[in-house]
């Protein structure tokens, strides 16, 4: 509809230029704030304004992590990412499955409602000791923790999406004689791809919360372990560095979900 003509008018050129300038300005300040923050932190450390033993310092963090393979940081990242992905996939699959059951049967859904409300508001970390006793202190306990945190949210989010499917779409399918199964597979589920990805985006973060909490409690490896260990031996460089790496890992995993969404919904509408 808005085909660019061969010759762009002066006003259009000016408009495009302004748009570009606006974007550049935002990006510049985003980077500038980060650089400024790191610079002030570093200089304050150098000049002795802050105690680098407690607050650490960019150069010390960099030094700690200068040789990534030597202190096994890659392995720690790998462990955390692995646990998060397993928890995430399990949470998404199980959560969606449960949501389908609840959508299908109004009776089960009504009966389980108070339980879901309680489980949803319960801080799942409180279940930590129980989980450790039940599944053992190890990777599986961490994965169960991630699952516990992300599962109920997924169920509620997906169920809500299924229930708010366009009524008219469902009626249209019914006028052709569609069965409940057909209504689900051809209208409700494909109509909720957006909901699914929204819930995946929330989930990837929640799974990471669960994994870190689990690693605080039981692990021998992983970023959560590094943070706890660093804190216990008062190596703040290790703690700060791990937190920074963790935020990068979290952002990358979120971005991966966004990319997946773009690939799947490429056709949808535009």
């Amino acid at each position, binding site marked *: 509809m808005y085909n660019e003509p061969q010759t762009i008018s002066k006003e259009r050129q000016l408009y495009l230029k302004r748009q570009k300038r606006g974007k550049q300005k935002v990006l510049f300040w985003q980077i500038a704030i980060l650089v400024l923050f790191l610079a002030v932190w570093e200089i304050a450390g150098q000049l002795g304004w802050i105690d680098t033993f407690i607050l650490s310092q960019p150069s010390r963090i960099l030094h700690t992590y200068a040789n990534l393979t030597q202190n096994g940081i890659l392995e720690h990242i790998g462990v955390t990412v692995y646990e998060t992905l397993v928890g995430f996939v399990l949470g998404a699959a199980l959560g969606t499955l449960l949501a389908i059951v609840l959508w299908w049967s109004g009776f089960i859904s009504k009966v389980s409602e108070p339980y879901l409300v309680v489980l949803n508001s319960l801080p799942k970390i409180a279940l930590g000791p129980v989980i450790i006793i039940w599944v053992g202190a190890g990777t599986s306990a961490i994965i169960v923790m991630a699952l516990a945190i992300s599962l109920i949210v997924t169920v509620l989010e997906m169920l809500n999406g299924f229930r708010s499917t366009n009524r008219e779409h469902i009626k249209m399918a019914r006028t*052709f004689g569609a069965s409940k199964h057909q209504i689900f597979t051809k209208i409700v589920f494909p109509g909720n791809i957006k909901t699914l990805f929204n819930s995946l985006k929330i989930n990837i973060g929640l799974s990471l919360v669960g994994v870190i909490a689990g690693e605080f409690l039981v692990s021998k490896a992983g970023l959560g372990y590094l943070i706890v260990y660093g804190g216990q031996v008062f190596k703040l460089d290790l703690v700060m560095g791990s937190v920074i790496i963790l935020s990068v890992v979290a952002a990358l995993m979120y971005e991966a979900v966004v990319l997946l969404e773009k690939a799947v919904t490429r056709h949808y509408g535009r």
Partner: protein
Amino acid sequence: MEVLKVSGIGEKYQSQNGEVTALSNINFSVEQGEFMSIVGPSGCGKSTLLSIIAGLLKPTEGTITLNGKLVSGVSPQVGYMLQRDNLLEWRTILKNILFGLEIQKKLTPENIAYAEHLLKTYGLYEFKDKYPSQLSGGMRQRAALIRTLATNPDMLLLDEAFSALDFQTRLAVTDDVYTILKKENKTALMVTHDIPESISMSDRILVLTRRPGTVRNIHTITFDMEQRTPLACRSHIQFNTYFNTIWNELDVHV
């Protein structure tokens, strides 16, 4: 020949606050190739009646027969058009048009060829691989009609099928749909609150009373012209006479 026969239909709703009688003792029939409309004051149960005829809703009393057979549940002989086009935005136009056949498990090569033939005849073939959002409102409504026609129903039910469109598009789409239905020789029953629209399209108009809805009157609409189209009817001298008659019967108070 009689396609649809509605006899003694009554409908009661049960709700927490009590019982509501929506329709009572409705009788009429629709002939092959006829275009019939149902008008009535809002809340008189027009759409409920259409849902009953489509087999989506069970009547409390009475029977519906379609080509002599009793209706129980949704019948593939009936096509239903809703207010919105309800095209699924994740499907291409072709896939949308084949939706009904897919649901009814009738995706045979002949049926697909017929659907494609309809697309070609009504100028949507070049858009078959596009998505609904890339089409204009009028084209979307036409695609929805083709989706209904693709299952080759004997009778079409139109439930306020044009009221979601803006006025100009609506005039064009009613002309479009009318021509298509006449060309395919389909029987149609339309529910609408728009009196001019019903006069411009119908061979007969059924006026319902306010709740509980019963048949107040059935008018035969004829225009003294060669090639009848909805748009031409609107400027015909008889149009206002019909309008006034029906308006008075609707007995609208504000």
